[in-house]
């Protein structure tokens, strides 16, 4: 019988569109598998206590804090990190909006902010300022004061809608 109690196991998942297989300890957190095993260091570790959102990735399209998911829980699922948003070499419209609207300063929180914004905009293409602030509650930024982040998300929504029409 597969999946019986194991302290380490083979893990197969799709990361940024590519099938990956690796061996991880049961206790390995998704963020460590991504950074240490797969070299995807765009996913940052800030607080490591599920507060700051720097480690946010998409798991089957939904934003999650990868410091609070066991890597083995992602078996068979699709993970998208910040590297995956611009996999074809072009920056994603959300990334471009953050550049154009000065949505970052030091950039440490930005991968997480952008992936949370991706989740928000995939469900609400035209969010209000209040909706954006509520959605980004789990992403802490110590540089911008958030105003330019909110403006960037609004602009990204406009850009994404423009492309769709």
């Amino acid at each position: 019988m597969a999946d019986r109690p194991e302290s380490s196991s083979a893990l197969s998942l799709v990361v940024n569109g590519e099938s990956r297989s690796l061996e991880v300890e049961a206790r390995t957190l998704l963020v460590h598998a991504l950074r240490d095993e797969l070299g995807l260091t765009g996913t940052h570790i800030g607080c490591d206590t599920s507060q700051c959102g720097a480690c946010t990735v998409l798991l089957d399209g939904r934003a999650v804090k990868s410091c609070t998911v066991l890597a083995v829980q992602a078996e068979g699922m699709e993970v998208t990190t910040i590297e995956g948003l611009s996999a074809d070499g072009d920056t994603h419209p959300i990334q471009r909006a953050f550049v154009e609207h000065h949505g970052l300063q030091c950039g440490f929180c930005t991968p997480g902010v952008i992936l949370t914004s991706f989740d928000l905009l995939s469900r609400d293409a035209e969010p209000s300022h209040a909706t954006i602030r509520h959605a980004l509650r789990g992403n802490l930024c110590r540089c911008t004061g958030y105003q330019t982040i909110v403006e960037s998300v609004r602009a990204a929504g406009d850009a994404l809608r423009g492309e769709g029409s």
Partner: protein
Amino acid sequence: MIPAPVRYARATDIDDALALLAEPDAKALAGGQSLLPIMKLRIARPSLVVDISRLELRGVDVRGNELHIGPLTTWDDLLRAEELRRPALSAMAECADGIGDLQVRNRGTVGGSLAHADPASDMPAVLLALEAAVSLRSPNGDRVVRLADFFVGPFMTALRAQELITDVVVPLSELGSGSAYVSVEHPASGFALAGAAASVGPDGERVAVTGIAGRPFLVSDHGDPVGDTEVFGDRFAPADYRRGLAIVLVERALERAKERAVEDR
């Protein structure tokens, strides 16, 4: 921070999960938004985590005069459930919207929160006010426990070692019903310093309070909601302050629930 060494098994069905949970230090893992943080802090050091997150216990549906919430339903699922868009159940989505943050709501589950029984968590107050019950399953069979009897103390419930929540059942009330949840949160953690849920209908009013005591509780006297309950306090919010908040929040929750009950007629 990483959890202490642990073994992992993904349960294939409820019976399989219960068999795995026979191990004395095993813990069931759903969304992990409560269990993983305490495993990382090594407050919890289970020998085995039984991953129940893929069991078919997720979703919201109405059957007869009851609302059934699968314990693996996430907060985000609740926010999107059409079934909750009626004044009698407004408190549920209102409450879910304020839990954690978007990422936590994508993973955290109703059943996980109930089983974890953090005395400051929000939804228990709402489910108490809505007179919910939980269905539990163990190798000895099934039983139903009213939520009012489920919470025993801080992080303690009526759940036995080898037992899982299989359903959360909310009786649906008649037209002319409304519910509401209001809270004052700790600005950093987002947990309730005090929270109050109210449900108002043709058959009367029910109010429940969370965040101020060892467990959430149903209020018996709305004029004196705290009564002789032993109120918890810390350096952020002393007991007297929490008591004051609870009294005001009960009034506000009742007022809002009554407004919604009028809209429902």
